[in-house]
């Protein structure tokens, strides 16, 4: 049930401050809260182009984390009803209007007391509309 839910809303937002990035809202692909340390994969494509992992960061409760930082945050919980902002840094601005976007989120579900790792992966494809400032 999570695949179609993980991109929240229909909009891409321009980043404030004039940097040519965008952000979108995402949901946790699981039925209960997980710490950010369990968010193992965040993969994004915009207009079919994959985004480099280093250009992606997450904002939860007002604090921004790179994906590498998130891996170390086992006491920062992503509450199941909350959206996180997914930021994508870009070299060139994105044109206003519609853009096909895919997001793949992979979580480690930390149940097991052995080496076995259960992973939940959700993938969502949506056309989002860039709103706000005219680039």
């Amino acid at each position, binding site marked *: 049930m999570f695949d179609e*839910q993980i991109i929240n809303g229909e909009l891409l937002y321009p980043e404030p401050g004039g940097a040519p990035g965008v952000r979108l809202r995402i949901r946790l692909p699981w039925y*209960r809260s997980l710490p950010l340390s369990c968010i193992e994969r965040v993969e994004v494509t915009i207009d079919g182009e994959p985004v480099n992992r280093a250009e992606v960061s997450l904002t939860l409760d007002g604090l921004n984390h790179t994906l590498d930082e998130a891996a170390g945050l086992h006491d920062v919980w992503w509450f*199941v009803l909350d959206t996180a902002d997914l930021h994508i840094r870009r070299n060139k601005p994105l044109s206003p209007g519609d853009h096909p976007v895919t997001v793949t989120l992979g979580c480690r579900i930390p149940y097991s007391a052995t080496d076995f790792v259960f992973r939940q992966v959700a993938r969502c494809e949506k056309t989002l509309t860039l709103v706000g400032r005219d680039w």
Partner: protein
Amino acid sequence: MSGEMTFHLGVTLYSFNHEFYTYRYSFEECMELVGTLGAGQGVEIVGPQMIRSFPELSEEFERRFKRAVEKNHLRPTAYGAYADPQRITGRLLTHEEQTEYLRTQIRSAHQLGFPVVRLQAVEPVFSDLLPYAEKLGVKMGIEIHAPNMIEEMQETIERVERINSPFLGFVPDCGAFCRSCARVYIDRFHQLGVNARVADRILALWRERPSAEKMASEVRKMGGGDLEQLMATESRVYFGHSDPQSLNRIMPHIVHIHGKFFGIDQSGTESAVRFPEIVSVLKNGGYAGSISCEYEGHHWTGERDVLEQIRALQALIVRECKASAQAPAS
């Protein structure tokens, strides 16, 4: 034996997962729905689903929870806790970290008025946590969930028997006792376009209980891809092969039960879980705790009236209690 139920019925709010996740029902609305089943209805929550401050308990949630319990005349039954041994990237929790993490959750359960905390079989449960649970009067119940089977848990059962404390026992999940895979699961995979030949093979293989590796390789050999592999994995982790009679092996140590079910049709039959037999075994075994109805069809569809499904399961349980009273004692 009379047709009276020896145990109490309730609901886990996890049943409303789809409606809760999609913002259709709030926590308070879920509690109200459970309240419509009648005064004294049991209620169970999954800690990190309902509590924003998890693993800690905020005063705000404590207040909201207690208000909703009172307003809807509910009875807190079990708190779903998590050991999460892999919470830290790259290593397992240490014994001390594991103990502290669960101690916090046992304390939350106690403050909310839950007599039972559902958890998993990690080491501190058998040692350091026991005096704490006893002090707070909270029973720790190790969940038994598919693909695990009572029949194959001899070591853990013996450990619990040796400790022989009313504060350490088991929470069997009824999904461990299936006669087949659930209809809603099969339908969903067909809707997603699963290869029908491979799907039929998975359902047939399920009956033979192959290992995860054997199942995966069979599916691969037939040309199955990610979707078929997911269907194979789900068949193992949702639909267990235990015999309901195996409940007798742990009967004195059952502290709570998850009445897992996937979908009840118009004839009142659950499509996978062996409820008639489960109810009869529990009744004849004198089980006197709670059963939380746990609807899990939401994993494959959001288009069911969850409350109606729960009503149907509770009616089935009451009916089977009466029927087992009329049947000769086994």
